[in-house]
């Protein structure tokens, strides 16, 4: 382990040097009062491991230069990297930890007189930050974009009614919403652009990576969500599937969700909107009794098999309610 690994004395305090940008809120900052959520999560990790954390402040505006700090041993840990193969595959000198949150895109609009639904965005003027995933998303959906260079400019444009709404990465939306009453988010599901975010260490530091992963296992349930919510990040982020509801589910609907996802989603899709082989269940026109009948008896001549005797009637009805309660897309 690099935590001052030149000596093997087990009694010595471990040290982790974190690479962080001195001025990049909400991610990190040299300010003692608001250090940024990535610094806070790194501290929690170090505490869990029983290591001492120091910070090597270095601007992350140029990714290559920031990575070089890690490669060349000026720090041991870099937070906030996408842990998708698109990013990690061409970084053979690094190891990546498990993700500790998922960055998504959200639409932010005034709660009154703004955009009421995702469908309503069409035809409005939508602000985006240039060259971000949000920009790409708005472009692909054919929305009328106005492009800004920095998040601050984007939020200023929204507040100044230059645009009707903005699409922005969830990390930026959270802090804005906390200090800007009168604005809200619209749920947006776009799985291909959801980005699991983790940390990177040097390839030779497998032990550190394992220690961070173990720490994240412990911190995942409470500490990390607490830190993120203090920065408003949970608030702004569409919860990841399969927990795609806004309100917590009842025990019946949790069971129905598990049954739907396990028994049905392979054909009907994780979001129930169908595949070439199976129907879009969100477009099901019948009543709950009709749903029950089709699931029990199947649809002869199609791939829809009878589920009679396998899923009981109450559970089938709960599945119908679970699907009905899925957020609109």
């Amino acid at each position: 382990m690099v935590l001052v690994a030149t000596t093997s004395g087990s009694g010595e305090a471990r040290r982790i040097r974190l690479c962080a940008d001195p001025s990049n809120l909400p991610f990190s900052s040299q300010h003692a009062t608001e250090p940024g959520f990535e610094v806070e999560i790194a501290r929690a990790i170090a505490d869990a491991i029983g290591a001492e954390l120091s910070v090597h402040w270095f601007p992350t505006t140029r990714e290559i230069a920031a990575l070089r700090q890690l490669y060349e041993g000026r720090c041991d840990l870099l937070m906030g990297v996408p842990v998708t193969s698109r990013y990690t595959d061409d970084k053979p000198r690094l190891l990546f930890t498990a993700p500790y949150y998922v960055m998504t895109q959200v639409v932010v609009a005034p709660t009154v007189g703004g955009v009421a639904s995702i469908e309503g965005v069409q035809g409005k003027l939508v602000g985006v930050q240039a060259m971000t995933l949000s920009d790409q998303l708005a472009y692909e959906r054919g929305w009328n974009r106005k492009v800004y260079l920095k998040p601050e400019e984007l939020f200023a444009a929204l507040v100044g009614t230059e645009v009707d709404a903005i699409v922005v990465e969830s990390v930026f939306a959270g802090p804005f919403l906390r200090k800007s009453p009168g604005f809200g988010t619209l749920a947006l599901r776009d799985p291909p652009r959801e980005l699991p975010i983790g940390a990177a260490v040097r390839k030779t530091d497998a032990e550190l990576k394992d220690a961070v992963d173990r720490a994240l296992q412990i911190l995942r349930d409470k500490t990390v969500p607490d830190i993120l919510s203090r920065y408003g990040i949970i608030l702004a982020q569409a919860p990841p599937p399969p927990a795609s509801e806004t309100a917590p589910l009842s025990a019946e609907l949790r069971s129905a969700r598990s049954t739907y996802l396990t028994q049905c989603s392979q054909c009907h899709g994780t979001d129930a909107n169908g595949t070439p082989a199976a129907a879009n269940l969100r477009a099901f026109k019948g009543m709950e009794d009709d749903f029950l009948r089709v699931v029990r008896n199947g649809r002869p001549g199609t791939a829809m098999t009878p589920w009679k005797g396998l899923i009981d009637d109450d559970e089938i009805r709960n599945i119908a309610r679970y699907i009905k309660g899925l957020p609109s897309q």
Partner: protein
Amino acid sequence: MSPFARFVFVVLALLSLVPTSAPAADWRDVTDDRLLKADGDAANWLMYNRTYSGWRYSPLDQVNAANVKKLVPKWIFAGGTLGDQQTTPVVNDGVMFTTSTSISLNRVQAVNAVTGALVWKHDRRIPEDVGALARVIPHNRGVALYKDKVIFGTLDAHLVALDAKTGKQAWETKIADYSDGYFMSAAPLIAKGKIVIGIAGPGEMGPRGFIEAFDAETGKSRWRWYSIPAAGEPGSETWPADTWKIGGGAVWHAGTYDPTTNLLYFGTGNPAPWIADMRKGDNLYTMSAVALDLDTGKLKWHFQYLANDAWDYDTTAEHHIIDVVRNGQTHKAVVQANKLGYVYTLDRLNGKFLSAVPFIKSLNWGGPDPTTGKSTENPGRRPTMGGPPVEVCPSLLGGTGWQPKVFNPKTGYLYIPANEFCMRYAYVADLTYKRGQLFTGVTAEHFSRAEQAGVLRAFDVNQNKVVWEWSNRTPLISHTLSTAGNLVFQGTAEGNVVAVDAKDGKELWSFNLGTPQSGGIISYAVDGKQYIAVAAGGTLRSQVWFGKEPKWADAARVNYSDIIVVFGLAD
């Protein structure tokens, strides 16, 4: 002319002296001796993989790289069902036996292999209350022939023998309780008077997997080997508490057999549920190569490819029996190209790991240690229960899955229908075991960053490397055949069957079947004429699994139709 070709010529000449009349009258029993010497019986395709070695290589060369352009359809046979079509037909002296399935039906048909005329049809009605997997993807991979019987496994977990001349049932044996989710999809393997077959269902449904041997004359059970040890047995320490009882480990694909070692070689499937956190431990003997003594069913050796599988990467693909020559040294080996994306070579006498080489590029789960073969995983590829999807490559259909790999002894190449694709993979939050329901607990969406996601790769088993590739837009969940005519045939989900040069992969011929190619491709000869038979019709995998990737949407719309198309050279 190669010695092989000369031999074939003689066989064909002999055959042509025998007039073909009604097949029933001419029936020649498929004895143990004929099965043992199946390789030399060039005109016939007597068992699922044609030979015990698992090669799927036809020594016929009348159709070859020089004349394959003249290949035309001779007849088409409609099986008449709408299930998954995964069968490999077998042929004995001009009679073809094929299977079809749908919800509540196992069908076996005997067909005149020259004209395509139906000789007999046997339908077995399947109870409505079978488990979820047998309802969702009813499928069957084919029959075995023994003496004058046609033997197959059923969706209600029985083994059935039919009279080869009439299709009338001779006997049946109940193998397991279908209410537990057990069913039979594999074609049986018959050797030394024993029918050997593994069970399907456990990997998705929960109950313990096994391989069982039956007396080929009577159907009586001779031995059963469980792929998961019971509490107290060696290996049971790799399962926490009672998880072994619902730990899966199906053995749903046909094995191979080496008469010189008297060992059966099977690949075992994934543990259940697919949520690895629910069964912490190595989960022996899932995800393994196992060698069983044919006479006793005793485990001679095992090699676990992946401990505590998190991704449904079941390693059930056939283990090819090949003597490989590396650095001047001959190894009696078994070679498996599997879902993990690697070609593994093991010593078939003792299971010792010899090598593992990747054959795909979309690979991020991890890989085997080059010296020991023990797998190490890359970080961040295991989902957490109820957590966000994780991108894992390959997808759960694998670098290559159950679709057989074929080995051509003339080129020394193993032809691997391989896939460059990934999945967004998540574990559900609240999975509980319910008898008869799927016990998987995951969601998965397939995608590919590759322009050409299906890649047929020729792998030189002696040089231990890929030597050429031929690619297709969609993944290759279809079959492959190699022949002495320097040809490799490959099917696609778009519905094409393509012939390429076995030496360099150059495309020589293709034909649009009109339905996804998804069953076996075989070759046989009758009256001196060589035929290529292609079973097609589609499998849920092509429609459901590809359905979410927009660039494959058109291929996913191709209709199902259970057919066999037989090709011959134009007159």
